[in-house]
């Protein structure tokens, strides 16, 4: 799962340990996600991986019905959310919204991360999913 060139390895290692990590520029303190080799704001190359609060709010969403991959046949529908992390400079993360796949999905609703281990995979990995929490 991690990118062979190593760019996003700290993210995946963090997820295995139940930590949500994004990049942060050591020079200008900008948060950055997805990962890149330099800071988009100051172009500095010194990027740290920092743990951020596993909380956010729904920025956008979609409900997928049509199975586009054989592995998804008879698994629909499912909800994909784009989650904005106000405590990490507003970067956005993609995940599934857990719970009833037919539930209404309000943009702006608060959510928290759920670490979903896939121990049987080779190599094992953990996905970061989301569930709604009380405002």
């Amino acid at each position, binding site marked *: *799962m*991690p*990118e*062979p060139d190593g*760019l*996003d390895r700290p993210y*995946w290692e963090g997820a295995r340990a139940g930590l949500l990590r994004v990049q942060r520029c050591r020079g200008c303190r900008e948060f950055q*996600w*997805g*990962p*890149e080799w330099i800071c*988009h704001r100051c172009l500095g190359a010194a990027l740290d991986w920092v743990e951020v609060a596993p909380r956010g709010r729904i*920025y*956008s*969403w*979609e*409900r*997928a*019905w*049509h199975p*586009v*991959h054989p592995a*998804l046949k008879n698994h629909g*529908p*499912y909800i*994909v959310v*784009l989650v904005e992390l106000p405590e990490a400079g507003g*970067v*956005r*993360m*993609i*995940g*599934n919204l857990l719970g009833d796949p037919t539930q209404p999905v309000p*943009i702006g609703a608060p959510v928290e991360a759920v670490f979903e281990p896939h121990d049987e995979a080779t190599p094992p990995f953990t*996905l970061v*999913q989301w569930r709604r929490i009380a405002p």
Partner: protein
Amino acid sequence: MRGARSIRGRVAVVGVGETTYYKHGRAPQPEFALALQAIRRACDDAGLDPRQVDGFASYSNDRNDPSRLAAALGLPELRFSNMQWGGGGRGGSAAVGNAAAAVAAGYADCVVVFRALAQGQFQRFGAAPPGGAVSGEAALTFPYGLISPAQRFAMRVMRFMHDHRVRPEAQRAIALASYHHAQANPRAVMYGRPLTPEAYDASRFIVEPFRLFDCCMENDGAAALVLVSAERARDLRRPPAYLLGVAQGSEYRNAARGHNAPTYASASFTTVAPHLWETAGLGPKDVHVVQSYENFTGGVLMSLVEHGFFAPEEANDFLTPENLIAPGGRLPLNTSGGNLAECYMHGLELQIEAVRQLRGESTSQVPGARVGLVISGPMVTPVSSMLLGSGDAL
């Protein structure tokens, strides 16, 4: 911007050609043979011997190599070949712009823009690629079922519709307009298969907010356009369709990974469209007919907003079937049936329809159309758009 650094009026489309359009996987010939047929028909239309072609431009990683085309067609020499980066239909207008730039700069004299697709021979776009493990950007999206083009772009449209309270009927009007126009067009794959509002509303969701009829078809076929200088165009047999402007690109950090584009709820024309109008010296009020690439109807909606035809808050009022249908609508849209109902020729059928409108030969003709806009590949950056005009528009 205009003047020496504008393409306006310097190059013209003088011939267009296409194969029969087929349902995907149904083409009776291989893709390369389809490409040759479309190119030959475009040259015939222009009244040019194919051996006068000296350049090729395409997009979307077209598989039909320009050197093989040149060899097959017996070209005395090949002077220009160009591939616009990126998949999808985003490069349709950019490829025309690249070809025109080559003619204007003197790199070549007669450049063909083409696109060919035979998906029985190759993989479909709407299906996930085979294989298991993924990495990079795909690792941020695929595990969550964010795989196909519809899934990749639905959240941009969802956010736009939320921000501006756009109702589903706005998307529906775009689908109905394409299907309406296809009923007049015998070339259209959906000719004889009209779409009613009730059938649209009853259709299944592919991925919310897109229903089945919000999504483009996938088809087999080929299309081609021939471009020469404006001076040479005036001596050829068909009325020239002059390129008035073309622009391509995307906004600030549009492709920030993992859906982190700052301007997210966008078709990605917010910077491109102003350049198009500036280079052409025109504005939306000057346009008589629009061909706007439908990967998904929501992409058309945002494209029209970003090209300045209406404000986002006006979308519900503007996007009605009556406003979008030729000949009498305020803004006749996708008058051949477009990607939804004529053919998903990766959008190049839209450039051909724009030429037909200026010649007065469309099956859904807009009376007196002198300026046509073509918008290519919303949301799939770098995007591109172009303006064509008849001689009266110069």
